[in-house]
């Protein structure tokens, strides 16, 4: 029997109150897409406010009221340094908020934001403090200038000898407009490298092509719309687990608290159980099969004539309208107009004819493939589209996330958008088709990704964005700069990638042995010339293994709360994220580090004094786009003010982009494609793109897209569990954020989740002798991996079948350990783990064969053999890790 582990989380029984004169700043949460508004109080140590409203900065009497958003929990307090002096800091949800997190609602993630602030007496002491170079195997502090000198020296060599595509960047895509603008200016304007990938995928490009191609912006909805809907179809997401306040403030409440919820998930999560209890529906779909489920629901709707005919007549493009643009825009499919003309987009009549004759849309077939009972499929169709007795229609909205677009990216998203459009959703209050969202929206590109330089190409002539992982594995990258991501654990077949990285970095004979920058550069040149790769890792914490084991240089970044930044949330709400305390040691914001390197390279245009200068410069690149904040910057300029300061005045409310100038004021945009929005003539710096009031296609009409199960079937069959294997799907849970970079430093969270977990059905557990609390191994001996095949020539060249035939599919092995949680929440045959738990990523058993059209991984389709290793130390612990069901409602 394992020895029980006791986490030493020590709950406090008091918290210091901010005195009346505490300094107040506004910000928004650093984590999920919802982007709740927060207030930050800082004041010097040695004083505290009192419990009377007149004695504290919150202006309330204590005890604070229930559900009033004015209570400070001990985890909302920390001690930081402000201008070198120790200060109390309280980070509290804005109880005065009228938007997003109304009345100070918050998630467990945002509620413990204060604990992410650097405090040398708490676990956040592990922050990176100095630039470091690995000299003789050990990371050692060096000055910033020396780090830039080494980076520039090796970069020049790599660019000169191997070209731009050998100089790679792998960066977060969300870490604030100021940083991503600097990153993209360096990568795409100065260096012009195609070897670039965001943190969550192997290359740039669309995540939800089925929405984009249909003319629907993935973030067109407002939170009000989810609140006002009568029924919501949620595909591959439970916002209760991952977008907490969107669920608890807007879906449980909002304009229509009696709305019905339909969840299509392999696992009955809290939100799904709650929705079902209140008259909703749970569709327990087998991983990866949502396409046939969507098609079957759509077919029942069409068979019964429940489609929204008036909407379709007005807003759905017919065949002629799709063809009329001569290849630009109207078909809206980057692939289609060179290669697959007429394959996806069709008018309503042709769509209906196709669907009614398509065998994979038949109810019995769909039931068999998706595992969802026919009666439930029929009921979903009724709930979404059957007109009421008085002829009115339920206001149906459609939310999708990674559960569907990271399993069958193209098929699931095209069938999803078509289903929503048939129900009349997409451009009206309470009737929307949108992503729920993951991280916030902080990308502002200074230049476009140089697709023409990418090594990849679709069949036909069109270029395709890179799959950077395959590019590295195939030995094409000599220098890689990693910013704010684990890279390998966040990608598929993680352990194969880790092996490659190890081999071409530490496994290379040429390792830095001198602090002299010139000598270091000479060593690294020999590394590159012998087929090895130089790695720079820039982050806030030591990241294993990219920073701790592989990087030659590690650079300390300053982040949330340590610099003035801006970003939008899932309803395009722009806010200022205020700086309120000193970054630790020599840590600097990403933009400053990028600029330092760029100047060392001799690039022009990287001379910013502060982040506001970048914000103002970047604004012009947002013009005409959905995140357009140019009118705000123009307005600030007219007033002779800094744009950050104008935004600061808008506090936690901020303003929804695209921002428009009306008269002397600035107006936000609630939803996109809004058929109810009335616009006057554009004023001042304002632009009025057609998609403000129409769909984002050539004609302003949405496009119905056909989806083909056959395009995916070969791959789905190849990754099916065989023998005693089970599906090992993965996702997020409420209490953790992404790779756990902050959670690892929060004892409160680590007592709850000290180890990776695996939810397993009681029947599957019993057959393997597994009980809750047992430590299990999850092993996949056949993790499929694609190699090569960068370019397609004939139509079917990049299909899975063709790739396998051509020898481009190999396999590797992957394994991780987890603590079993036996639960009826998962369907039999399916297990669920946290996608990227530190040290034990479930992505290890996930195939690395991207969608051939979009280069998106099928993260959710892992599998493995589950065996019991023994009891975990948590099984009998009375202090760590709960095994209670998560979905008690």
């Amino acid at each position, binding site marked *: 029997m394992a020895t029980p582990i006791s986490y030493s989380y020590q709950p406090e029984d008091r918290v210091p109150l901010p005195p009346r004169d505490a300094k107040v700043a506004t910000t928004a949460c650093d984590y999920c897409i919802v982007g709740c508004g927060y207030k930050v109080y800082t004041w010097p140590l040695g004083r505290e406010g009192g419990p009377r409203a007149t004695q504290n900065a919150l202006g309330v009497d204590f005890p*604070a009221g229930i559900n009033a958003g004015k*209570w400070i929990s001990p985890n909302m307090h920390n001690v930081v340094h402000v201008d070198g002096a120790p200060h109390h800091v309280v980070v509290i949800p804005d109880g005065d908020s009228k938007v997003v997190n109304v009345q100070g*609602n918050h998630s467990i993630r945002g509620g413990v934001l204060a604990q992410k602030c650097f405090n040398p007496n708490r676990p956040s002491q592990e922050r990176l403090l100095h630039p470091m170079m690995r000299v003789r195997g050990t990371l050692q502090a060096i000055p910033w200038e020396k780090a830039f000198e080494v980076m520039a020296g090796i970069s020049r060599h790599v660019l000169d000898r191997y070209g731009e595509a050998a100089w790679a960047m792998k960066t977060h895509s969300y870490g604030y407009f100021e940083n991503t603008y600097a990153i993209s200016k360096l990568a795409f304007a100065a260096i012009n490298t195609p070897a670039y990938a965001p943190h969550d995928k192997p290359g740039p490009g669309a995540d939800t092509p089925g929405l984009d191609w249909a003319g629907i912006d993935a973030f067109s909805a407002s939170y009000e719309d989810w609140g006002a809907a009568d029924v919501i179809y949620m595909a591959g997401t439970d916002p209760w687990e991952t977008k907490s306040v969107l669920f608890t403030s807007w879906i449980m409440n909002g304009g229509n608290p009696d709305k019905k919820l339909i969840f299509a998930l392999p696992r009955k999560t809290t939100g799904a159980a709650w929705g079902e209890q209140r008259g909703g529906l749970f569709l327990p779909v087998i991983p990866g099969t949502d396409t046939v489920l969507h098609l079957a629901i759509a077919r029942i709707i069409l068979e019964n004539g429940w489609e929204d005919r008036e909407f379709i007549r007005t807003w759905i493009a017919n065949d002629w309208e799709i063809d009329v643009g001569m290849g630009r825009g109207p078909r809206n499919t980057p692939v289609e107009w060179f290669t697959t003309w007429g394959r996806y987009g069709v008018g309503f009549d042709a769509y209906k004819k196709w669907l009614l004759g398509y065998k994979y849309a038949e109810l019995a077939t769909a039931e068999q493939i998706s595992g969802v009972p026919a009666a439930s499929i029929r009921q979903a169709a009724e709930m979404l589209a059957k007109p009421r007795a008085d002829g009115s229609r339920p206001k149906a909205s459609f939310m999708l996330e990674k559960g569907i677009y990271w399993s069958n990216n193209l098929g699931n998203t095209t069938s999803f958008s078509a289903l929503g459009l048939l129900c009349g959703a997409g451009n009206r209050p309470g009737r929307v088709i949108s992503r729920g969202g993951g991280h916030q929206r902080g990308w502002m590109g200074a230049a476009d990704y140089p697709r023409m330089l990418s090594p990849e190409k679709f069949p036909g002539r069109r270029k395709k964005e890179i799959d950077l992982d395959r590019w590295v594995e195939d030995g094409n990258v000599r220098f890689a700069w990693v910013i704010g991501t684990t890279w390998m654990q966040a990608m598929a077949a993680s352990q194969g990638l880790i092996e490659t990285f190890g081999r071409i970095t530490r496994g290379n004979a040429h390792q830095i042995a001198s602090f002299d920058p010139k000598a270091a550069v000479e060593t690294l040149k020999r590394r590159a010339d012998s087929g090895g790769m130089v790695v720079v890792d820039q982050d806030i914490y030591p990241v294993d293994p990219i920073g701790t084991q592989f990087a030659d240089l590690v650079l300390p970044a300053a982040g949330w709360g340590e610099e003035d930044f801006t970003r939008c949330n899932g309803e395009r709400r722009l806010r200022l994220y205020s700086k309120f305390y000193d970054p630790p040691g020599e840590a600097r914001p990403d933009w400053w580090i990028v600029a330092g390197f760029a100047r060392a390279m001799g690039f022009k245009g990287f001379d910013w004094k502060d982040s506001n200068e970048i914000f103002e410069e970047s604004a012009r690149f947002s013009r005409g786009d959905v995140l357009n904040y140019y009118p705000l910057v123009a307005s600030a300029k007219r007033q002779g003010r800094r744009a950050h300061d104008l935004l600061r005045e808008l506090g936690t409310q901020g303003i929804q982009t695209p921002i428009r100038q009306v008269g002397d004021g600035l107006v936000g945009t609630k939803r996109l494609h809004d058929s109810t929005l009335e616009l006057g003539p554009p004023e001042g710096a304002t632009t009025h793109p057609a998609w403000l009031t129409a769909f984002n296609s050539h004609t302003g009409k949405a496009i119905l897209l056909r989806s083909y199960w056959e395009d995916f079937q070969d791959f789905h069959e190849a990754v099916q569990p065989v023998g005693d294997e089970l599906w090992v799907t993965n996702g997020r849970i409420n209490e953790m954020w992404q790779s756990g970079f902050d959670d690892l430093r929060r004892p*409160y969270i680590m007592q*709850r989740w000290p180890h990776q977990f695996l939810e397993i059905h009681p029947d599957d557990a019993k057959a393997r002798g597994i009980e809750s609390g047992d430590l299990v191994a999850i092993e996949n001996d056949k993790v499929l991996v694609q190699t090569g095949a960068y370019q397609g020539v004939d139509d079917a060249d990049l299909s899975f079948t063709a790739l396998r035939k051509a020898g481009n599919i190999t396999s590797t092995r992957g394994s991780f350990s987890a603590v079993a949680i036996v639960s009826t929440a998962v369907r039999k045959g399916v297990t669920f783990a946290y996608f990227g738990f530190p040290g034990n990523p479930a992505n290890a058993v996930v195939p690395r064969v991207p969608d051939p059209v979009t280069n998106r991984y099928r993260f959710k389709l892992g599998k493995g053999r589950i065996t019991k290793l023994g009891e975990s130390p948590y099984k009998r612990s009375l202090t760590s890790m709960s095994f209670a069901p998560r979905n008690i409602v």
Partner: protein
Amino acid sequence: MDDLSDERSCLSRRAFLLSGGTAVAIVGLGPLSRAFGAGTALQVASYPRKRVARVSQLVEGTPLTFTYPWNDLNSTNMLVKLGVPAGGGVGPGRDIVAFSTLCTHMGGPLAGQYRAQYRILGPCPLHLTTFDLTKHGMVAAGQATESLPQIVLDVSGDEIWATGVMGLIFGYHSNLAVRA
């Protein structure tokens, strides 16, 4: 001003007694160390002692309510015999525990939400947070930023006494300080 129990004294004085980590000996605490076991932190100031129940009157799975350390709404707690050993559990089966019934997320009422089958308190009717009563009130799933405050219990013969609180009770800025 709220009522105080008779046993309470020196409320304005703050005299914390801290222990944490398996190596710390909790000398002199007697019942407290048994209650919370090695490795569990506890912070006990001059909390009052208050008799809250009798072991003989408890029915497994049926909670009793009581107020502690004050007598206001925020000090409402429940005491329950779980039927399985629990962190901080007292009594012969180490299964008698007591917790605040205000959700540490936003103060939602948890009274009446005990699920005996799972030894879970919740879901909170406001935002669906649940707490695991076998593990010191740890969040099982949900939004709360603190475990549910656990009332430190002491058994003396048949009598169960409340002697302290682990964690800040919702609404308070201090469990012991004078309020507005």
